Every structure is written in C-alpha cells, then in structure tokens.
C-alpha cells in the first residue's frame, strides 16, 4: 500500500529542498504491539469454546519520512497517534515490525549491539519527563560523565572532566551543580541537564520527545531557546516530537502531522500554518487556544480518535471528517505531492473537493 508514498517522498525532497541532503530516511515503517504477550493470555473462552485470539495495537501503519541535514522536522499529533513510537523506532529503542530506517545512507534498523555503537553516539535523545530520565542515584557530574566514558574509553579523567565542564557551560548549568543529585533541581534545570547529557558526546542528530511539555510557560521559553542556540552552534538536526502546535510554528522547519499511526500531511512550517490542507490539520490548527479575539472559527470534529486495535477501513480519519465520502471509507489515501511541493494524504484534496 505504500508504493505511491515511497515514490512520492524522494520526489518532494528534490522539489522543495533542492540540494538538501537527507540524514535519516524512514521507509514503509510499521510497528505493531501485541495486546497479549503470552500464549495463555491469548486464550479466550467464547460460546463454550476455547479460542486463541492475538490482537495487536497498530501503532505505526506505513510511515515514510525523510529528515534533512540541519533541519528541525516536527512530528505533531494527539496522544496515541504514534509520534513517540516513531521517535523510539528511530533511536533503536524498539525494533520495527516492517520497514527500513537508514541513517546517513546506512540501514540501521537491523543492526544490533556493537554495530550500532557509532550511530548511538551520533544520535541522541531527549525525553519528555526530566523527573524520570535522570538517574536519582547519580550526581549530575556522574550523569554527564557516563556517556563520555562509554563512547570514549580512551579518554583520561581530566579530558572527560574538561568536556563535562564545557557542555555544562554551554547549557547554562553552574559547574557547582555537579556535586548535587537530580532531585535537588527544578523541572527546567533538570531538562537542561538532560540536554547537556545528550550534547556531551557531540551528536549531529537529536530526537526530542516532547522536551518541554512538562515545563511551565516561562521555563519552556528558556529550554526552547537553548535548543535553538544548540542547533545554530552545533549544526544539529532535530526530530522534534510534540503536541504543541505553537511550538512547532516557532521551531520547526517542516512539520509532519500524524493521525492513528499514519502521516496525513507533510509540509514546510509556514505553508502548513498558512494553508493547512488535510481536514485533520485544519481542525487541529483551529483548536489551538489563541490570544487574539478574532480567531478563525473552531472546526468541530465529531467523535473521538478510534482505537488503534481495530483500525477503521479506508482513510483512518473518515469517522470524524466533515468531508467524508464513500471512497474515503474504502480506499486508503496515499501521500500525494501538491503543487507547492508539500504532501497530503486525502481523497478530498486529491479530487479538488476542498
């Protein structure tokens, strides 16, 4: 089912980002999680008979994405759309059910252990909850030294300590904090430490999974500035997972909107916010609580996100879409390239109905 999409993506890449070099390529990615793990858990008693049923959560259903070097690709969507699963698959924290992930031209999804080691250094991750992602039994100094000692076993202690001091300075952490433990810090400070840990091994690619969602507004701005500064100074590439569209508008180079494990629209940030094409993107944008009084009318969606256990037939969004037609219920829409070089998976857009 992804034949069209697979062809479409490279075409867009060359159209909109002439010369942009792709760093990460995701092709036809699927990830299913079994609902019941063990054999006995799969057994159900139905109409007097024992049946074995193996139901699965269809978290990712055919995702194709390309991340260009130096950009910040934002993946947005509501809870359960699979955006965090994409992040984890890219980092190798989960292995895909089907599909390929290549980093810098090299397929990495089938690599294990030692083979993956050089890539682990080049790709780092920042997690959502800085209260859970710092080891409570390690001091900040130990936390920051650990990745360095692991990836550079030949470094001497002074070398490691110099590097830690460096990276602490670059994220605005007082070197005095090194002796303290994670719980002694506020959320914003902890997230700085988590960013410092990711930057310590000089990565080129950072996957950030909702890095500012757990923080207060005034602290969000501090952390977002830090991430933007780091990008400018170190020429980083980001895969930025978030549900906050205001942050995307500010931070993202391109945006991928996900719904129920599929990408429904992929566009550069400015044109996505100016002219959202997919009905879901339109609803999502209209739902942001804005400060202005004269905001566009809120597009009301009927119903709620269906469960990813039994996926709807056809377009996954058809149950809530205001432009639904018979074709949407039967045929899965593929990502098509629109005239401005962006991509959208919607029959109504393809047929010119909206």
């Amino acid at each position: 089912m992804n034949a069209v999409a697979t062809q479409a993506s490279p075409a867009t890449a060359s159209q909109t980002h002439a010369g942009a070099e792709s760093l990460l390529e995701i092709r036809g990615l699927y990830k299913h999680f079994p609902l019941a793990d063990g054999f006995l858990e799969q057994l159900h008693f139905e109409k007097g008979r024992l049946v074995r049923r193996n139901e699965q959560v269809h978290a990712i259903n055919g995702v194709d994405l390309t991340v260009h070097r130096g950009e910040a690709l934002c993946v947005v969507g509501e809870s359960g759309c699979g955006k965090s699963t994409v992040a984890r698959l890219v980092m190798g924290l989960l292995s895909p059910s089907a599909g390929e992930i290549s980093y810098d031209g090299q397929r990495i999804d089938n690599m294990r252990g030692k083979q993956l080691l050089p890539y682990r250094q080049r790709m780092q991750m920042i997690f959502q909850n800085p209260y859970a992602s710092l080891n409570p039994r390690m001091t900040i100094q130990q936390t920051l030294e650990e990745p360095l000692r692991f990836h550079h076993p030949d470094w001497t202690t002074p070398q490691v300590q110099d590097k830690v001091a460096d990276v602490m300075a670059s994220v605005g952490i007082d070197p005095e904090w090194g002796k303290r433990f994670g719980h002694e810090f506020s959320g914003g400070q902890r997230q700085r430490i988590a960013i410092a840990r990711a930057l310590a091994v000089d990565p080129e690619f950072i996957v950030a999974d909702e890095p500012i969602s757990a923080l207060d507004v005034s602290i969000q701005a501090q952390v977002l500035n830090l991430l933007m500064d780091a990008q400018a100074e170190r020429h980083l590439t980001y895969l930025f997972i978030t549900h906050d569209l205001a942050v995307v508008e500010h931070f993202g180079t391109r945006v991928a909107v996900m719904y129920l494990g599929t990408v429904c629209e992929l566009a550069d940030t400015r044109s996505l916010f100016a002219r959202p094409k997919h009905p879901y993107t339109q609803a999502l944008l209209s739902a942001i609580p804005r400060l202005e009084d004269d905001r566009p009318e809120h597009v009301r969606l009927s119903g709620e996100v269906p469960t990813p256990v039994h996926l709807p037939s056809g377009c996954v969004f058809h149950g809530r879409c205001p432009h639904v037609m018979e074709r949407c219920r039967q045929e899965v829409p593929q990502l098509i390239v629109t005239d401005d070089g962006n991509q959208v998976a919607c029959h109504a857009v393809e047929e010119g109905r909206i």
Partner: protein
Amino acid sequence: MALLEVSNLDVRFALRQGEVRALRDVSFTLDRGERLGIVGESGAGKSVAAFTLLNLIAKPGYIADGSIRFEGNDLARMSARELRRVRGNRISMIFQDPMMTLNPVLSIGEQMVESLKAHRRISTREARAIALHKLKQVYIPSPETRLDQYPHELSGGMRQRIIIAIALLLDPDIIVADEPTTALDVTIQAEIMTLLRELCEKHNVGLVLITHDLGVVSQMTQRTLVMYAGRVIEQGPTREIINDAQHPYTQGLLNALPQMTTPGSRLNQIPGSMPSLANTPSGCAFHPRCQYRYDASGEPRRDCLEEVPEFVTSGNCDVACHMVRDMLAKEAS
C-alpha cells in the same frame, strides 16, 4: 453585592520544616454568571485558591485569615454540615484528572444518582431522569447506555464531559474548574471548553477557571487574575490584560509564548524560576527575576527589595508593582 466575595485570604500549611504561606492577601469577587480566570505557573498558589473557595483545605493546611463570602455567608467559618449544603449543590468543582474524580467501582448512573439524592429528597427513578437529562446537555452519545457503564469504559474526553454533567447536576451557581482540560488533547480540549462556556452562558452559572494557559483564559473568561508566589499580582478584564498587561511578570509570561514572536527567532524568556512558597523573596516576590528592579542609576531599587507592592489602578486593572505605581504617578503630575 457580588455572589462570591473573597477578601484578604491567607492560607498556610504548618509543615515540619516550618510554615508555608500558600496564599497571601488574596481578594477578588465573582458576579452571577461571570467567568473569571486564575492564571499562574506551578507553585503560584492557583490550585490552593480553588480548593479554598470550597473550604477544602485539609490539614496541615488552614485558613489563617480572611473570608470567603458566598451570598453573604462566610464559607471559611461554616460548620461541616453547613458546608455540605453548599459543596456540589451551590458551588461545584471540576478537577484536573477525570479518572481520579470518578469512582472506579460505581457506574456513572450510580455516582450521579448518589449526589442528587444526597442533596434532594427524590426517588432513584427521578434522579436517573435528571442524570439522563444532564448527560444529554453535555452531548454524550447514547446517554442511556452510559448511565450503566463504568468510568474505565469511557475515553478521557467522554469522562471529562461526564464530570461536567455531574458538576451541573444540581444547577449550581458557581463552577470551580481546576485545569479541566490539561490532561486532554487539543481538539478535545477545544470541544470541552466550548461546551463549558456555552453551558455557563445558557444557565447563567459563574465560572472560576484555574489554568496555566493564557490562550484558554483569553478564549473563556471575562476577567483574569494573575498569581505569583501565592499573591495576586494583577487583575482586570481579560482583554485588557492580554492586550496591555502592566505587571512585568504578566508581560513576561505573554511575551514568552511562541505565538508572540516571529517564528525562528529567540523567545523572550523570563530568567530564573518561580520561588518556592517556603522561601519567597522579600518585598515584591518577583524582584529577583524582574528587569525593572534597578533604578535610573543602575542601583537595585530598595522598594522592590523591601516593600510588598500595594495595588494601583491602571485603566481597569489592578496591578501590584512599584514600577507601575511610579509610572502612574509621573503621568498624573
């Protein structure tokens, strides 16, 4: 006379490490049918303010001073029995997490009937009919079936709608909603907020909305109260506060939002973070983070450091800031 009149509220928590002052000198009013927003970051005291409105502060917390007058009667000095007649009946509350609020072992219908029968002398059949009617009001699909379902069978958005139906059950005068949509997705949040606003307008119910989201306040409320470190620092009509905030903290909070700057540029951040309530700075609690804490010669201003600022009136807003006071005085002379 306002429907609800909170004056000089002082709430403290007696902890082993010493006394924590969660609310200091908080005063505001709410008229019938008015929608008021209380905004602030975590640790500002906004949730304590919400709980105090229903005198729900539990030990080691206590109301040290001040009054909460509802139709002239002081909730802070009522007996438990008198309070029960107000809570849920005249003033109802919506909490942040719908899963925590609903009882997991009772069906939706049982929970609704229970609270109706606690306040009114009616039969179960009558109570069920009212419950059904309220579920219809919040647009719950197939309400008859929902009455016999348990909370875990429903989605987050559906649960929060049921909470709203329960809050409306006894036709209250005021609903206090503490971050009612923080646990929900944006599209569901927009739906719940629109629903809440429409219902409040239709039934002339007053709303006290606690949130950290200035966008939500802007969409939902007529008046706004900004809190910082346990104090109200600015209050006035919502539009005026959003468009022309006077207090440096409110300005900073608004300017820190990504939608207020050109995409891609640095955000205007407020340095530092909210002080802990156990250890609030002297004078104006915001002074260590404030860019106006120096005078013309570059020296730290003594008044910001030492005196708690009094409210001054600027336009239709009340602002507690020494800098704003001086500016107004200069304009007047």
